[in-house]
């Protein structure tokens, strides 16, 4: 008997299923399922899972993000890819969760970083973990390549956008496969592209100019780390929804390492900051 898959909801629609869903559930299992329109190609019907609607709860759509992450930065260097972000889950203006890992490993050759609604990111990680688990159970030597992870996430995010129920995230996918680094990004509408350096959110405005100036594809790891530190610092100075606690994730031929959180030196002892109320009454 085929086990009923959990998080890969049939409501995701076409092209958003993992390998375990490719086996059609036998009809004997699913008596109450009204198949309005079954494609003549023999595939599963693209219907919203009636079970999801059946228990009386109204179907809710994400209309607004609540706990959010800010920018994620990514650059390629000679031997791999570096991703960087802070570890903040902000609740509006409140800096509520200060140890949230926004950079996660998918498999030995791929990492994903997310900004935006963090619960949606956790759901995305669950989808990716299911795919990686399927690969592990298949035990045939094939694992998801970074480009495949990127493509899969594009399809998932675009599909959800089409249902007016987006996963409110800006994702960065970084990986190293067949001797070549891979770096791509996907937005909440499904907009996606690959590039030598990417950033999400505020990072696009604050960090990308620095990357454009200093990035070279044959950078060493130290140079790349120094560039990322510089960009992270600027993002921390200028983005109000950030904290001075960062992690950097590296993918290379040796695999994935995600660093322990660290802080950067910042300078706040400027004269005009020293007595913030000095001009409170106004200059004229």
């Amino acid at each position: 008997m085929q086990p009923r898959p959990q998080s890969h909801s049939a409501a995701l629609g076409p092209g958003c299923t993992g390998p375990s869903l490719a086996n059609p559930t036998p009809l004997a299992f699913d008596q109450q399922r009204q198949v309005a329109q079954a494609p003549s190609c023999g595939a599963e019907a693209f219907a919203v899972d009636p079970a999801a609607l059946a228990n009386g709860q109204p179907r809710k759509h994400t209309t607004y993000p609540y706990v959010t992450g800010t920018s994620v930065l990514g650059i390629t260097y000679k031997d791999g890819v570096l991703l960087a972000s802070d570890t903040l889950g902000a609740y509006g203006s409140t800096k509520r969760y200060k140890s949230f890992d926004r950079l996660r490993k998918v498999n030995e050759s791929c990492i994903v970083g997310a900004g935006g609604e963090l619960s949606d990111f956790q759901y995305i990680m669950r989808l990716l973990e299911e795919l990686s688990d399927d690969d592990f159970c298949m035990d045939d030597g094939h694992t998801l390549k970074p480009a495949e992870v990127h493509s899969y996430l594009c399809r998932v995010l675009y599909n959800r956008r089409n249902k007016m129920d987006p996963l409110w995230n800006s994702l960065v996918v970084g990986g190293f496969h067949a001797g070549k680094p891979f770096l791509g990004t996907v937005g909440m509408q499904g907009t996606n592209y690959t590039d030598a350096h990417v950033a999400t959110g505020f990072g696009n405005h604050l960090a990308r100019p620095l990357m454009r100036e200093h990035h070279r594809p044959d950078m060493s790891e130290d140079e790349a780390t120094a560039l990322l530190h510089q960009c992270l610092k600027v993002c921390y100075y200028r983005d109000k929804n950030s904290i001075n606690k960062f992690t950097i994730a590296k993918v290379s031929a040796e695999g994935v390492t995600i660093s322990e959180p660290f802080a950067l030196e910042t300078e706040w002892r400027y004269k005009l900051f020293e007595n913030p109320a000095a001009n409170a009454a106004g200059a004229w």
Partner: protein
Amino acid sequence: MFRNQYDQDNTTWSPQGRIFQIEYAMEAVKQGSAAVGLKSHEYAVLATLKRAPSELSSYQRKVFKIDDHMGIAISGLTADGRILCRYMRNECLNHRYVYESPMPLGRLVRQVADKAQMGTHYSHKRPYGVGLIVAGVDESGPHVFYNCPSGNYYDYKAFAMGARSQAAKTYMERQFETFADASLDDLVKHALQALQASLADGELTDKNCSVAVVGKGMPFTLLEDESLAPYIAAVKEEEPAVAEAAPAQGEAAMEAEGGAAAGEGEQQQGDGGDGDAGGQAPMEQ
């Protein structure tokens, strides 16, 4: 095998632990005409003998392209084969759409096997009556798989199925160690020679067999009619010794074809070196 009291339906085990309906479904594969699959380090090749239901009809198609990197040969109930072909094409398309990369063969073959197994599990279903040889190339190189109506699948270096396939298997068992490093032309010739062993009577012509090749740099390509003729000619060139050794059999085959053909065949036999006793059809066309 003989009829017995345990073969009525899909859900009855025999005391020896066999389900006869599944085994009968595997017999259906043996009713189809022969198909062979073999591979080298770089290429996988399929070759099939096509049958025509009557002289007025065209030959039944047995090789289907699933995706740029894989295809199948079927033997048995063609209708069942077409359904599985459609399923495989759909899965490959979906995989390409979601992951922008070709589907790994082993996974698709496993999915087809799981689908076939469902037909063996319920009393309201029947097993698929078709065997598939799946040939293709993915990241881990060329593969030849066999999908059985029982829901099993096997990874092969070379395989044959269908009517009189044992002769093809015997040929390949003797030769398979040379396949790994063979060139593409040699591999196709081996496939045709294996197929020839399964021929009851008549000769390999470019009309009654079809070949497909797929390789690391080569998308799945079907060779039929004109594109197959040079390979058939090459196979025949290599067998003057075999042909001369069995002229009686050759002439018996000729007479079955008709008097005029037999006459021309004998003339060409006299030429020598140009083709063997059976070379009449391609030459005439």
